[in-house]
C-alpha cells in the first residue's frame, strides 16, 4: 500500500507539471465519449440534435467532471492555492475601500500585539543573559520576623566555605554606593560596589582586559584593587588600553585597576567600579549587619531541594555556634529569573491579554466586513457552486482571501510595531529589566507571522461557514434571500455584541488602572516636590575623614546656596524620598534594656539631615522644635521622629522629651520634634516610622542636596555646581534632577501600564463603535423600503429613529451584560496592580458603561438620522 501511495504522489507531481497537456487530454477524451454516445443514439433513430442532447444528459455535468478530475490529478492543493491567490488578489483590488479598512484594522491589532510581544519576549521569555542561567539562584536570608533579608559577610564566608552544592557561591553588596573618582583631571562621582572574589566567575564572565579578582584580594581591610565597568573605562579613561596596573583614587583611597569588564554585560548592579569585599574590615565582621546579596550557581546534578537541605544543615551549625546572632536564621533560594523578572511579570501579562482582546475586537470588525461582502457575493458564490466548485473549495477560497488580508495586515503591523516599540521604549519605566533589548527581531517576526495566520483563520471562519451554507437553488430563487439574511444578521449581531463585551473589559481594565494611577499620583507625599531641585554629593573620607570638616562643608554649602538669587530654602538628607534609597537602624526607647535581646529590638528608618531640609521639602513640623545650627556634636544629642513613629511606638502618649538609643550608640537622644509622615519608598505605601538626626551629630558623608526655588528650579543646576566648586574644586555633583522628576520616576511603572491599557481600551472602543455603526448603517440600507412603507403609512420620524436606535441599544446592552460578567472575572487579574481601588470598583464600572453606551448611541444615531431622512416615495421605488 505504501508503494501505491508513493506512486500516486509521483503521478500527481508529473500531472501537476503537465497541467495544460492533461487538460487538453481530458477534453479530447470527453469529446470522443460524447461523439460516440451521440453516434449510437443516432443509430437508434434519434435526430442529430436529440442524439447530442441525450449524450450530454447521460454524461452529466461536464464542468463537474472536470473539476473532480482536476482535484484528483496533479497537486490540487498548490494548484488551487495559486489559483485562489490570484483570484483573491483580484477580488481585493476590485474593492479598495474594503481592503484598506480591513488591512488597516488588522495592522492596528497585529501591530499592537507585535509591539507588546517584543517587550514580553525581551523581558520575560528570552533566557537570562548568563551562561547556564537556569542553574543560577539568588539566596536570601530568612529570619523569625518573617521577612527576607540580606546575608552578613561572616555568615556568607562560612556558607561559602562549607557548602558542597554549588559550583560558585558568590556575593555583592546589595546597593551600589557612590564614591568620588579622583586622580585624573575631572573628578566624577561613580557608583561602586563590593563583590566576593568569585562574583564574576559566578556570573560566568571574564574581564576583557586584565584579570578577575582572586581570593587574596579579599584578605584586606581596605580594597587594594578594582575592576572597571566598560562604560566608565570609555567615558572617564578614554578607553586607555594600558589602564591595567594604573592607580586610581576612590574616595581618596588608592586602588589599582586590575581589569576592565566587557561591554553590554548584565551585572545585577549598576556599579561601574567594583572592588573586592574587604573581609578584614571591621564593618565586614558583624554577623548582625546583613547587606550582602548572594548569587550562586548550583552544581550540576544537584537539585534545589538538595541544595536547600545543605544550606539548612550549615544554618543549623551556625545557629549552634553563634546562638545570639544566628538563632533561627537560615537561607532560602529563588531562581534568578523569578527575582529579576518576577515584579514586572503581572503588568506585562495583563498588557499582553489586553492587546490580545484588542486584536479580537479588530478581528470581529473585519469578520463583519467580510460577512457583509459575502452577502453581496452570494450570487457569485452560487454560480461557482453550480459550475462545480465543491463547498470545500468555496470555503478554501474565502479563507485564502482572509489570509491575504491578515498577512497584509501583519506586514503593515510589523511596520507599526517598529514604530510602536520606539514609543514603548520612551514610555517604559527606566528600571524595566532589559528595556534596551526590546526590538522587533526574528522571534518577534515569527510570532507576528503565526499571529497573522491565526488571525486570518479567526476572522475568516464565520464568513467561510456562511459561504459553505449558501444554497445554490435558493439563491437563484429569490425567496432564499430572506432566510439567508437572517442568519447573516445573527452572525453579525453576535460579532458586534462580542466586540462591545470585549471593549467593556478593556475599558474597565484601563479605567481601573488609570483611576488607580491617578490616585497614586495624587497621593499626598507629605512633602512638596514642586520647585525643588536635588543633587547628590559625596565627601571623600580621605579628605573629609574628620566629622567636623564634613559639618563645616555642609554648613557652608547650605549658607551659600541659600544666598543664591531665587532660592527660598536649602538643606540636605542622607536618603532622598522616592528614590529607592534605604537606611534604617534598630533602636530602643530609653529605660528598656540595652542592647536589646536578639530579635526583640525595634527598627525604624533613620535619616541624617541638615537643619534646612524640613523647610526645603515643606514637611510640616507638628510639635516641638526643629534642628538648627546649635545642634552640634558638642551639644546634647537630639532626634526627631515622624507622626507614624509616634503612633507606632508611643501610642496614646506624647513622645516629646523621651529618649531613644539608636544603633550601637551609647548615648541617648532626646526627642525634640514630631514631624509629618512622608512617602519614602513608594507612592501609596503605608506610613513608615522614621527618625531624623542632625548631620552634625552623625557620621554621614553622602547626602542629597535639596533646594527650593521661587521659579523653575532646573535653572539652578549650574549655579549649584559652581557653589560646590567654590568650596572644593574636586567635588562633583551628580544626579541633578527636579524633585518632580524623582516623584514621577517612582510611579513610572504604573503609569506605563495605565497609559498602555488606556490606549488599547480607547482603540477597542473606536473599533467597536465603527463595528456597531457599520452594522446599523447596513441594516438601515437594507430596510430602506420597509422604512419607506412605514413612513408612507404614517409613522413619525421619531418612531423610525426609535426603531433604529432601539436595535443598536439592544445589542449594546446585551454586549454590556456579557462584558460586565467577563469584566468581573477578568479584572481580578489586575488586583495586584491596583492602588486605592478594588478590582470591581463600581464608580469605574459605571463610568465605562456610560462611556460605552454614549459612544454606541452616537454610532447608531448617525445611521438613524439617515433613516429619518428617507423619502417614502424614493424608498418605495428603491427596489
Amino acid at each position, binding site marked *: 500500500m505504501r508503494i501505491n501511495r508513493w506512486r500516486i504522489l509521483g503521478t*500527481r507531481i508529473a500531472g501537476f507539471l503537465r497541467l495544460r497537456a492533461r487538460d487538453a487530454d481530458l477534453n479530447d477524451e*470527453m469529446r470522443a465519449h460524447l461523439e460516440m454516445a451521440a453516434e449510437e443514439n443516432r443509430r437508434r433513430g434519434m435526430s442529430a440534435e436529440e442524439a447530442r442532447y441525450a449524450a450530454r444528459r447521460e454524461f452529466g455535468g461536464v464542468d463537474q467532471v472536470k473539476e473532480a478530475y482536476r482535484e484528483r490529478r496533479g497537486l490540487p492543493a498548490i494548484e488551487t492555492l495559486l489559483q485562489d491567490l490570484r483570484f483573491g488578489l483580484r477580488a481585493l483590488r476590485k474593492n479598495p475601500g474594503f481592503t484598506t479598512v480591513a488591512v488597516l484594522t488588522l495592522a492596528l491589532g497585529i501591530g499592537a500585539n507585535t509591539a507588546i510581544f517584543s517587550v514580553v519576549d525581551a523581558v520575560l521569555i528570552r533566557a537570562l543573559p548568563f551562561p547556564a542561567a537556569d542553574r543560577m539562584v539568588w539566596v536570601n536570608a530568612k529570619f523569625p520576623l518573617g521577612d527576607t533579608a540580606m546575608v552578613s559577610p561572616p555568615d556568607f564566608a562560612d556558607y561559602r566555605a562549607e557548602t558542597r552544592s554549588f559550583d560558585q557561591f558568590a556575593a555583592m553588596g546589595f546597593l551600589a554606593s557612590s564614591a568620588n573618582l579622583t586622580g585624573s583631571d575631572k573628578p566624577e562621582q561613580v557608583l561602586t560596589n563590593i563583590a566576593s572574589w568569585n562574583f564574576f566567575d559566578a556570573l560566568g564572565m571574564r574581564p576583557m582586559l586584565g584579570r578577575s579578582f582572586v581570593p587574596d584580594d579579599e584578605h584586606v581591610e581596605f580594597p587594594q584593587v578594582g575592576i572597571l565597568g566598560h562604560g566608565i573605562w570609555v567615558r572617564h579613561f578614554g578607553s586607555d588600553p594600558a589602564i591595567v596596573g594604573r592607580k586610581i583614587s576612590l574616595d581618596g583611597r588608592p586602588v589599582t585597576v586590575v581589569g576592565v569588564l566587557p561591554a553590554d554585560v548584565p551585572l545585577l548592579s549598576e556599579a561601574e567600579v567594583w572592588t573586592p569585599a574587604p573581609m578584614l574590615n571591621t564593618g565586614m565582621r558583624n554577623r548582625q549587619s546583613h547587606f550582602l546579596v548572594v548569587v550562586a550557581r548550583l552544581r550540576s546534578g544537584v537539585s534545589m531541594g538538595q541544595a536547600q537541605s545543605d544550606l539548612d544543615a550549615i544554618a543549623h551549625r551556625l545557629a549552634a555556634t553563634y546562638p545570639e546572632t544566628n538563632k533561627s536564621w537560615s537561607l532560602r533560594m529563588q531562581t534568578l529569573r523569578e527575582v529579576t523578572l518576577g515584579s514586572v511579570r503581572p503588568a506585562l501579562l495583563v498588557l499582553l491579554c489586553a492587546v490580545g482582546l484588542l486584536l479580537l475586537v479588530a478581528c470581529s470588525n473585519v469578520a463583519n466586513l467580510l460577512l457583509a461582502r459575502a452577502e453581496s457575493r452570494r450570487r457569485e458564490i452560487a454560480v461557482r457552486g453550480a459550475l462545480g466548485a465543491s463547498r470545500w473549495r468555496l470555503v478554501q477560497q474565502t479563507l485564502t482571501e482572509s489570509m491575504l488580508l491578515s498577512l497584509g495586515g501583519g506586514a503593515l503591523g510589523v511596520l507599526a510595531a517598529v514604530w510602536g516599540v520606539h514609543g514603548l521604549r520612551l514610555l517604559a519605566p527606566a528600571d524595566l529589566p532589559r528595556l534596551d533589548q526590546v526590538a522587533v527581531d526574528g522571534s518577534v517576526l515569527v510570532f507576528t507571522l503565526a499571529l497573522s495566520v491565526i488571525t486570518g483563520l479567526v476572522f475568516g471562519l464565520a464568513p467561510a461557514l456562511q459561504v459553505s451554507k449558501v444554497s445554490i437553488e435558493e439563491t437563484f430563487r429569490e425567496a432564499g434571500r430572506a432566510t439567508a439574511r437572517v442568519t447573516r444578521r445573527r452572525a453579525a449581531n453576535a460579532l458586534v455584541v462580542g466586540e462591545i463585551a470585549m471593549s467593556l473589559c478593556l475599558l474597565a481594565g484601563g479605567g481601573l488602572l488609570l483611576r488607580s494611577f491617578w490616585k497614586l499620583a495624587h497621593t499626598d507625599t507629605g512633602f512638596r516636590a514642586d520647585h525643588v531641585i536635588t543633587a547628590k554629593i559625596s565627601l571623600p573620607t580621605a579628605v573629609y575623614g574628620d566629622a567636623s570638616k564634613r559639618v563645616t562643608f555642609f554648613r557652608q554649602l547650605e549658607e551659600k546656596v541659600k544666598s543664591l538669587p531665587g532660592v527660598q530654602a536649602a538643606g540636605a538628607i542622607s536618603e532622598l524620598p522616592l528614590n529607592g534609597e534605604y537606611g534604617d537602624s534598630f533602636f530602643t526607647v530609653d529605660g528598656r534594656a540595652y542592647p536589646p535581646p536578639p530579635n526583640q529590638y525595634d527598627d525604624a528608618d533613620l535619616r541624617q539631615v541638615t537643619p534646612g531640609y524640613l523647610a526645603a521639602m515643606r514637611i510640616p513640623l507638628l510639635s516641638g522644635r526643629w534642628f538648627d545650627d546649635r545642634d552640634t556634636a558638642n551639644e546634647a544629642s537630639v532626634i526627631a521622629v515622624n507622626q507614624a513613629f509616634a503612633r507606632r511606638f508611643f501610642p496614646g502618649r506624647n513622645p516629646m522629651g523621651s529618649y531613644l538609643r539608636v544603633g550601637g550608640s551609647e548615648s541617648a537622644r532626646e526627642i525634640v520634634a514630631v514631624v509629618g509622615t512622608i512617602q519614602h519608598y513608594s507612592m501609596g505605601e503605608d506610613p513608615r516610622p522614621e527618625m531624623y538626626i542632625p548631620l552634625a551629630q552623625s557620621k554621614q558623608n553622602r547626602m542629597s542636596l535639596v533646594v527650593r526655588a521661587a521659579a523653575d528650579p532646573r535653572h539652578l543646576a549650574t549655579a549649584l555646581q559652581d557653589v560646590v566648586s567654590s568650596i572644593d574644586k574636586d567635588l562633583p555633583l551628580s544626579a541633578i534632577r527636579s524633585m518632580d522628576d524623582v516623584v514621577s520616576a517612582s510611579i513610572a511603572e504604573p503609569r506605563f501600564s495605565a497609559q498602555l491599557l488606556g490606549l488599547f481600551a480607547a482603540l477597542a472602543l473606536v473599533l467597536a463603535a465603527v463595528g456597531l455603526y457599520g452594522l446599523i448603517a447596513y441594516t438601515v440600507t437594507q430596510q430602506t423600503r420597509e422604512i419607506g412603507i412605514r413612513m408612507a403609512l404614517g409613522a413619525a420620524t421619531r418612531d423610525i429613529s426609535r426603531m433604529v436606535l432601539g436595535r443598536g441599544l439592544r445589542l449594546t446592552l446585551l454586549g454590556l451584560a456579557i462584558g460586565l460578567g467577563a469584566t468581573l472575572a477578568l479584572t481580578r487579574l489586575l488586583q495586584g496592580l491596583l492602588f486605592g481601588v478594588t478590582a470591581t470598583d463600581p464608580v469605574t464600572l459605571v463610568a465605562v458603561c456610560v462611556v460605552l453606551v454614549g459612544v454606541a448611541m452616537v454610532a447608531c444615531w448617525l445611521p438613524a438620522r439617515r433613516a429619518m431622512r428617507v423619502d417614502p416615495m424614493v424608498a418605495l421605488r428603491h427596489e
Partner: protein
Amino acid sequence: MTGTGNPESHTEVLQGTLDLMVLKTLETMGPQHGYGIARRIEQISGDLLRMNQGTLYPALLRLEQSGWVSSKWGVSDNNRRAKYYAITKSGLKQLAAETKNWERVSGIIARLLQPAEEV
C-alpha cells in the same frame, strides 16, 4: 462522486463498487475506451444502474494513479481517436482481492437480510 440533482431515479454507485466494476469490465472485455466501459456497465446492469457517465473519468484516473489500469491513445472501430484503458497485472491482483472481499461482504449482507426463521 455519484451525486446528481435527481435522487430518486438511480441506484447509488459507491466509489469502491465503481472501481470494481471497471476492473471487471476491463478484465472480461480487454482494452476499452471510457464510453465502451460505461455502456458495458449499463448494459450488464440491465438499466437498473443509471450513472452519470462522466463520473467514470475521475474513477479511471484514480485507478491509473494506483497503477491498476494503464491508458494509451488509440483508434476506435469507426476510426475515432479515443483513449484506451487496459487492466494491468497489479490491477488483476487487486481485482481478485476485491472480488473475494466483495463476495464475503455480500454474503454477510445476504445472510443478514434473510427472513428471520431461516437463521
